[in-house]
């Protein structure tokens, strides 16, 4: 799950393979975060994990780790 999640984040945020992803990072503070990345994130959560995340729920999540925990608990 964790590995799938990390791959999904690399895809959604268009992160270079050489860059390491720190799960404690607040995803909204990532350099690549904007409203378009948000669409990619929604798409990847739906495609890889079959989860549709409402905006008001996403607002309560801050770090990549929060996202992973949310997905794991679904």
């Amino acid at each position, binding site marked *: 799950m964790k590995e799938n999640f990390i791959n999904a984040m690399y895809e959604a945020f268009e992160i270079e393979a050489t860059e390491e992803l720190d799960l404690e990072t607040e995803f909204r503070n990532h350099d690549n975060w*904007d*409203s*378009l990345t*948000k*669409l*990619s994130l*929604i*798409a990847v959560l*739906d*495609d890889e994990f079959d989860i*549709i*995340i*409402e*905006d008001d729920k*996403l607002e309560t999540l801050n770090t990549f780790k929060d996202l992973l925990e949310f997905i794991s608990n679904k």
Partner: protein
Amino acid sequence: MELQLYLLQFLSAAIPKNTIKNLEYTNHFDENVVKEIVDKTGIKERRFAPDHLTSSDLCYHAAEKLILDNAIDKTEIDVLIFVSQTPDYRMPATSIILQDRLGLSKDTAAFDVSLGCSGFVYGLTMAYNYANLSGIKKVLLLDGETRSRIYHPKDRKTAFLFGDGGIACLIEKKDSFLPSFFSLNSDGSKQNLIKVDAGGYRNPSSINTMKEKVVDIHGNVRTDEHGYMNGGDVFNFLLREIPKDIKQVLDFSDTNINDIDYFLFHQANKFMNDYLSKKMKLDKDKVPQSISKYGNTSSVSIPLTIVDQLKGLLKKKNLLLCGFGVGMSWASAVINVEECKVSDIIEVE
């Protein structure tokens, strides 16, 4: 609903000649940011109506073209429906002004329909239903938008997305080739996903509503009289409702998805539409797009895509149409086309 009618026989479109290239649209944003927006949305160009042109003008030109190309007897047009959320005036209804302008008889029933992205599919059901009534020979369905005027050029979330256009189509009752099927839906709990707050009667216009203000932490600017859109929640809505609605109308019509010749989706955003196609495992060749050239023209986008991409190809075809957006309102249809004659697109100055 199932409607046993012959589909739109003739279709035409008019767009402003004034072309806006998104990469050159504004200096307000960093050029790399703009490039990314263009790449992701797929919108390279749009058409903006100059100040003297309105949606009804575009529809007028499209209608005259359709009438001329097909030698339509205007006296046989009994109903005129104008779909738009950018009408000429608050009142009277723009459709009535168009009745006069097009020289249609005073026996013509004319009315406006205020719907956005779902508007064309909704409009078709109305046109079909009217055409089914005895005493009605032909229905002229017009659909026009000048969405370029609704959104603020300094609001990054919407500045690069919307464009203008108008279409005309003619519907006539004939012995059906095959029936057509529709699914119409509404969810007003999502009214705030895409909205213009002020300028109606809930929040009337005032000096304050016309003031520019910074609306978020990213520094996006607009007034209360400009539109806004919550892209994330719109995408969520799309994922939640659209595949389900398409499946529902296919099941209702007893149509196998592989028997659909073309899927015409509302042209909102290339990323969203590509994802929808991927999710539904659609053959890309069956999903024509026009968003790169015209942007999001709201209800006009489905028929504009047909005119732009399917001219000469609409003979004995099964189409799936799906319009979704502001409201939220969405509509899907399985349409069987015996033959639809499409006019060349005209550009209006």
